[in-house]
């Protein structure tokens, strides 16, 4: 038992501690000059712009599917008029943020894990340091900042394409107009749904980028290590994000009690 504690629990806790220190450093360095603006912009391009097709397509599909399911259940109560609002509320509050989070942790988390892992094992990180560049600032902070910036934007895109998808499904059934659908969709959404739901994805972005960066920067063992870093980035980031979401939802309810319906 004591052996188990020493060989499994203690290293595991130590690893967790290192991640927390790493995350704290990322947060601190983010607000300390010099700022790697160009590199951050490049990462926004990678994380945000290049995720747009994926997010938009996924949002559209999710919107269609959710609309059909919502219709199936609301139709029974004769509450078809609530379909747009129900869809928008679900998207804005939870589905949009979580789906974006999972998609980005898949696409970007794996990308960061693999890229930094490869840079680590091919000494590019050392090379950066050797040319007097703060590799943590240059590689980690820029990615964390880019993810935190891109996530809310991607979430907004997801929500809107989701509503467009919902409208597509709805108009096929009832021929509802786009503008009236759009207005109906926002008829029940409150600021207290919209703002926390959108902005909490910054936390998701932080978690994804920090986790993937940590695993990438600490990759070892050549090509295999790179693959491992990528895979573990996705898994760890997704799990951490979902767990954090539970805490965040409680926290948002606590801060904005009126959202807890």
């Amino acid at each position, binding site marked *: 038992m004591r052996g188990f504690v020493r060989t499994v629990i203690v290293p595991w806790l130590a690893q967790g501690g290192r991640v927390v220190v790493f995350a704290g450093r990322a947060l601190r360095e983010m607000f300390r000059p010099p700022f790697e603006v160009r590199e951050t*912009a490049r990462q*926004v391009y990678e994380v*945000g712009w290049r995720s747009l097709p994926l997010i938009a397509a996924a949002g559209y599909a999710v919107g269609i599917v959710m609309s059909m399911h919502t219709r199936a259940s609301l139709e029974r109560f*004769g*509450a078809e008029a*609530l379909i747009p609002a129900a869809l928008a509320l679900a998207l804005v509050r939870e589905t949009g943020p979580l789906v974006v989070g999972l998609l980005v942790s898949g696409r970007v988390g794996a990308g960061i894990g693999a890229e930094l892992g490869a840079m680590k094992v091919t000494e590019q990180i050392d090379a950066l340091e050797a040319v007097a560049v703060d590799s943590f600032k240059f590689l980690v902070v820029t990615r964390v900042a880019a993810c935190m910036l891109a996530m809310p*934007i991607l979430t907004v895109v997801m929500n809107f394409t989701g509503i467009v998808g919902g409208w597509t499904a709805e108009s096929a059934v009832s021929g509802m107009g786009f503008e009236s659908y759009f207005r109906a969709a*926002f*008829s029940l959404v*409150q600021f207290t749904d919209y703002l926390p739901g959108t902005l909490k994805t910054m936390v998701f972005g932080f978690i994804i980028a920090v986790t993937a960066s940590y695993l990438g920067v600490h990759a070892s063992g050549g090509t295999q290590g790179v693959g491992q870093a990528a895979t573990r980035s996705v898994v760890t980031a997704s799990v951490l994000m979902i767990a954090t979401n539970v805490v965040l939802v409680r926290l948002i309810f606590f801060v904005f009690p009126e959202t807890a319906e």
Partner: protein
Amino acid sequence: MGSPRLAMVGAFVIGGLLLFAVGLFLIGDRRLLFSEQFEVEADFGNVAGVEIGTSVRLSGLPAGEVIGIAIPGEPGGRFVVRMRVREDLHALVRADSEAAILSDGLLGSAYIQLRAGTGAAPLVADGGSLAGVDAVEMSDLIVEGRETFRIAADEMTRMRAELSATFGDLGDTVTATNRLLAEVGTGVRMMSEASADLVAESRGLVADVRTVMSTVAAGQDAVEDVLRETEAAMGAVRGSAQEVERAIVRFSGPGSVTDRLLDDARTAMRHAREVMADVADNTEALKRNWLFRGFFAERGFYNLDELTRDEYRALEADERYTVLRVWLAADRLFEEGGEGADGTLMLRVDAGRRIDEAMGELLQYPRTSPLVVEGYSTLREDGPRMNDARRRAELVHDHVARTFGRPAGATAAMPLGAEAPDSPARDGRWDGVALTLFVETERLAGTAAEQ
């Protein structure tokens, strides 16, 4: 990092912020953050489903939202709901406007409906208050409804007990009533209208039937017509019973109408019951009066063939009639026909004269008095004896009917076997026929007095 890429990053960030702002605007627009507005208050005893942000509608138009709910300082106090309303609707919000908490369908969220005031009332000032009409909660409605229907069910049960006492047709109606109580439909007004008609109709019907009955009592000259009318009245009653049934099937709805409705229905039922009772009493009396057997037999109510000997004998005891008999012995009336294995019975050539003589004794009595030709036989075995008795009665009956032109249904043949307590034979048996005339005792007295 080339400038095209930087442009894309810029487009991404700016586009994202714009889209975000569109969302903010849509929510804010609904919340009237970007338009002029004024505030009003309304008080409610119960604010179920209302919270900050609950939408406010004026005559169905989105008009604003709830911005605050003040909790009463003591139990029994009223909640004051503060609302923000679009300024452009201010002209419609008058001192006599009312606010009510409604709900979008069964599942929908609550909203506050403002009713536009009248032009006569002054405008409500910014921050002024309106009368609040308390929400009728679905659950309350259901409880209320359940109570109403429990009462209705009791009523129906009572009515069923009454109705089943009167007539079978109405029993079916009660079945329908019971069925109805399980499934509540709509259309209360239709029911109350229908039942009002029904009440009027029933009253008329009762009057009609009473007239008919008095006619029946008055005399027998037009008895066929009377009975036909009675039958028509019964048909009408049956029809109104069906109408009650139909009306009850359409029955449902909130308490106030139900009460009136139940009264109406009860009145209708009472009238119907009176009619039925009258009809039933009279009909039963007529039915007992086997003398109208032809009439009854034709209508399936009664058949002399079904009457046992004992029942026939019991009828003789009816004090309303006096029984007069002329006894004729078989050996002076019948002879065996030559042909046929069973030996066909025939009237003798001189039998007609003997029967006519016997009838002569009875012709002094009213012509409509029922005449029954009783057949008797003393054959030893039961089957042939009854056969013989019937054959004899029928032969004589046919002769009488042919010769004397009796009114339809006023003459019958009745095989009675061997037993004849009143016969001239000493052993209380008779072999032959008896011409039996049932004369109303009252008229017999009259006739006798004349003699």
